[in-house]
């Protein structure tokens, strides 16, 4: 919406935030592999943080790529 007026798409902002969250959550998940958290969670052996963080990184990258404002300007 309004990309033609120079307005960056909302989906680009969504991508940025998801990418940042993905990196943080993936990082926390990897850290937990070496330093287990003080509070155990159910199904912790699945290391959900790692794959959910990775999913957010991928989603974030996809949104940033497809809604990058440079694509509209070029």
């Amino acid at each position, binding site marked *: *919406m309004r990309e033609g007026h120079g*307005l960056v798409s*909302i989906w680009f902002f*969504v991508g940025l*935030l998801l990418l940042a969250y993905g990196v*943080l*959550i993936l990082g926390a998940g990897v850290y937990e592999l070496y330093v287990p*958290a003080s509070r155990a969670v159910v199904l912790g052996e699945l290391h*959900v943080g790692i794959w959910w963080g990775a999913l957010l990184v991928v989603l974030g990258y996809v949104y940033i790529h497809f809604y990058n404002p440079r694509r509209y300007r070029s």
Partner: protein
Amino acid sequence: MNMLASTLPPAPDRVLALAPVDMAIVALYFAAVIAIGFYLKRYTKTGEDFFLAGREMTAWVAGLSFLAANLGALELMGWAAAAYQYGILATHWYWIGAIPAMLFLGIVMMPFYYISKTHSVPGYLKLRFGEPSRALSAVSFAFMTVLMSGINMYSMALVMKVVLGWDINFSIWVSSLTVALYVGLGGLFSAIFNEVLQFVLIWLGALLIPILGLMETGGWNGMVARIGQNFPGQDYTHLWRTMGSFTDNPMGIHWTGIVLGLGWVISFGYWTTDFLVVQRVLAAKDLRSAKMAPIIGAGFKMMVPLIVILPGLLGLALLPMKLTGEAQAVATGGHSFNEVLPLMLARYCGPGLLGLGITALIAGFMSGMAGNVSAFATVWTYDIYKALFKKDASDAHYVTMGRWCTILGVMVSIGTAYLVMSFLSIMDYVQALFSFFIAPLFGTVVLGMLWKRATRAGGFWGLLTGTLSSIGMWAWVKLDPAAIRFIALSPNAKDMAENMYRALWSWIVCVTVTVVVSLLTRPTPERELNGLVYGCTEVPHDGDLPIYKRPAFWAVIVALVFVVLNVIFW
């Protein structure tokens, strides 16, 4: 339409403790929404930009925003609590209590709202029924909106206190001022942008609970078996089977109340005339997008039980402790129904994921509040200030007024939150207060759109008597509880059933009075109804579009899925 979490008492121990990475995720969210507000300020110059987001939203953005404005944090936590308490019956508020009305809005009503170029629902009433109807509906809407906003704010702050141990004042002021800042800067533009962002975060933050819960229980059948073991003899997993009698289900409601009261009057009233949600659709870039937006919203609304109702049911199956009502939780030091969603978050989410889950709850609160204040600012500026006090000011003047109204709306909401803190009994009445206005308003708007013989006098007197009759019925039951047998058709009916039937009767009163007064008064000339009423308006048809681009096609698809889901979970 949200299930208000009732008063949450201070718990002996908080449910969750956040790690530094969780705090970073929450802080990043606040920074992002404020940054979006500052970014959008430069694009928000005219009244059309500020109050209607320039009418440039795509169907997807308008549709997701339409749904997100309704998906407040208390909607998430309150209905998860209701699912723990009543089982899958709570799903009625998401399916029959939403989907038919959303489809009706998209296919039948949206053309009239959109073609009339109104800024608001009270604005449509002015065009159709004249100034008195607009004034009545605008004042009642403005009053209810800030009241609801304040009550939601207080409830959310209380939840944050119980769940995270945060100070109530800190939660109220930080979250409210953030909303005031980004809505004040970018108006509806900023509210809608952030609502889309919040919608994505709500899903990504809450979706892990049903996924991991079903993995733990071994799927749906495993969950049902565990609920059966934990609560023998009670049916928590069927939608309609126990609705044959008031006494067969924990809600104390009959299927007629659900279908006619909830599915017809309350649902249609809320989804088609509450400006909080309709405003998002009015921001669509063209008529096709405006028709598609509620249909897209309906598609996602059908899936919301996955992240709201299912966690409540999983709580029944998996939580080692039995959750109770507030009073018992206070007496025993245990956990209440309202804590089921945070408890399930704590069960599965470690550092990082927990921050995402809490961000989802905060995002839900903010999207609901932004919806309230942006709708309040529009109705106040256009339907009260411009209509009654200053008719001929410049566009820039009204934009400035809108920005100040946003701040004012937030401040009044904060005041209401503190008022509720002092007089907790207000919480008991707010749902009833809300229903006073919604059901009759639906009668007035739907007759106005579909019946050209409805006159200005008919519309005004129908709306007024419908509202007064609703207040009268509520007062009658308050003064004489035995009167519930007349209002809700059974002495065994409970509060929920009373709300449903009262809405139905007040709608009938409104429609009857509107019809009678209209037939007794001079008809409005048809030339004055052009663009406002069915039969006097040329609605562009979608016949030249490929079938997959037609709103009616997608409405049929959503309706079929709705029917199939009800049959599956019958």
